[in-house]
């Protein structure tokens, strides 16, 4: 210590030895970390990875002084702030553009005249892509793209934007820093500006379903937004089969159902939907075809079924690789269209039983699926007493052992 005046306490402090931590501390910390890491949502993983890449580039960028480069990247730097604002504006423009495709030519309700009037007063000269010059090449590429140009110049898009901002829920959603950050990501921007997505969203049926206030409310839910902003989900959504399924009138009707929307907004569901393997399984044309069947959709709209389905354990079971594999089983998909089978599935005890890996594996077995299509067996399975019996672990074990043979 080089303090100007030595005091009696100084020597004692300098002589104080560091305290040794318990020998198992690091091991205990790492055990907690592994659990915490598993609990991270797909969105958080993606954000963290993206931040990690940013930091790695920071270290490895040749010819750039670390502190200068760092300050550019960190929030305090003016360049970065400007870039973020511009990219967020770009993202908002995409959202607004999509909202135009989604809402069509929106009917502006009574009472919004003042909002629009006030907005018009502050309208400046038309912005063009040339006015925007940002250093980030990905963003720059997007901003200079035809899609962005089209979105920027479209008067209907601007009207849609005004309507969007007059919607309290959406305005609140758009003011969330996390969303702005997500929208600034080149991957998200690219996925959102995919012509396939835009074309599918312009389908009149999709428009009608998405202009439903309940749908809008569900979309404003941060968990739903988080799942939807996941690049993997967006990529899956841009798949032509998914888009076709989404354009199905029955699917759209089911999706407009308040119970379905409520179930979709549940954190467990959005978290499961944010998983790449779930999205992949759900994007399978056969699965989509099965899910689009009226009976399945009717079952999906049943409040009790949805309640059971959105249970954390069930969602975990549904995200299980074995179950996702079972989804590719033709018999299982056929059984999904069977009203009796769906009734059996809507039994909360049965859904809970699904969390058993053995049962999930059994569902992938063609013989099991054939057996399950037997009306008498289904009737027996739908008996509440059977459901209760399923809560017995030894019975579950016996079933899974018998089925997996």
């Amino acid at each position, binding site marked *: *210590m080089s*303090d100007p*005046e030595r*005091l*009696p*306490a*100084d*020597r*004692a*402090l*300098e*002589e*104080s*030895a*560091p*305290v*040794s*931590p*318990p020998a198992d*501390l*690091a091991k*205990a*910390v*790492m055990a*907690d*970390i*592994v659990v*915490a*890491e598993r609990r991270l949502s797909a969105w958080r*993983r993606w*954000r*963290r*990875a993206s*931040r*990690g*890449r940013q*930091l*790695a580039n*920071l*270290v490895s960028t040749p010819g750039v002084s670390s*502190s200068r480069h*760092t*300050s550019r990247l*960190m929030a305090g730097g003016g360049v970065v702030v400007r870039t973020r604002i511009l990219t967020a504006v770009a993202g908002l423009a995409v959202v607004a553009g999509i909202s135009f495709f989604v809402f069509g030519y929106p009917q502006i309700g009574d009472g919004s005249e003042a909002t629009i009037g006030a907005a018009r007063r502050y309208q400046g000269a038309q912005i063009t892509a040339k006015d925007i010059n940002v250093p980030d090449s990905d963003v720059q590429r997007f901003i200079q793209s035809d899609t962005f140009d089209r979105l920027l110049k479209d008067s209907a898009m601007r009207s849609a934007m005004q309507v969007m901002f007059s919607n309290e829920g959406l305005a609140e959603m758009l003011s969330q820093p996390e969303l702005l950050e997500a929208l600034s990501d080149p991957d998200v921007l690219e996925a959102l500006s995919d012509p396939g997505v835009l074309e599918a969203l312009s389908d009149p049926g999709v428009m009608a379903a998405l202009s439903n206030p309940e749908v809008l409310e569900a979309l404003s839910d941060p968990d739903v937004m988080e799942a939807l902003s996941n690049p993997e989900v967006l990529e899956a959504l841009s798949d032509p089969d998914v888009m076709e399924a989404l354009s199905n009138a029955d699917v759209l009707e089911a999706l407009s159902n308040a119970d379905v929307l409520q179930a979709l907004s549940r954190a467990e569901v959005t978290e499961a939907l944010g998983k790449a393997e779930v999205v992949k399984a759900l994007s399978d044309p056969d699965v989509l075809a099965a899910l689009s069947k009226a009976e399945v959709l009717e079952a999906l709209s049943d409040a009790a079924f949805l309640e059971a389905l959105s249970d954390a354990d069930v969602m975990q079971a549904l995200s299980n690789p074995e179950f996702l594999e079972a989804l590719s089983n033709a018999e299982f998909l056929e059984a999904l269209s069977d009203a009796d089978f769906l009734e059996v599935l809507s039994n909360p005890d049965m859904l809970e039983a699904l969390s058993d890996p053995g049962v999930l594996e059994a569902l992938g077995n063609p013989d099991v699926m054939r057996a399950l299509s037997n009306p008498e067996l289904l009737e027996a399975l739908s008996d509440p007493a059977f459901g209760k019996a399923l809560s017995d672990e030894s019975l579950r074990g016996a079933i899974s052992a018998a089925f997996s043979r």
Partner: protein
Amino acid sequence: MCVSRCLRGDTAAFEALVLRYQRVLYTVAYRLTADHEDARDVTQNAFMRAFEHLETYDPTRKFFSWLYRIAVNESLNFRRGRRVHQPIEAAGPPVVTDDPVERIAAEERIQAALMALGAGYREVIVMRYFADLSYEEIGQALGIPEKTVKSRLFTARQQLSHVLAPGWSPQS
């Protein structure tokens, strides 16, 4: 860089950070809580929080300063949550010695003296002498100017000398 690797999903990279900083963090936690069990919990919680919020770490700052701030907040919250008010025993003058028994006694006296200080003074002492931070780093961690760090540290050392002086008691 461990932080970047860990953010990209390499959890094992975090272990390197834990191994590197566990000793100093545990020392700080112990000096602030005066209890080994509490220090263990605080250290564990601090690492966990650091992991959970790793993406918010600003690489323009020293990683330890960031981690340290988390540990201090954890220590303070921990004490607040537990409402621990340990009675301060008379510290007495420390004896600098090679005898292990006397050395333990001396450490205990220093710890008791530290606990007699106000939280703000104890904090700067711990940062300077047990975490080996510079004035600048202490200022950054506490959000106060370097000049204030120096004056606070001087007052803390004066108070500590007073507490360690023979004949001192909590009443005096």
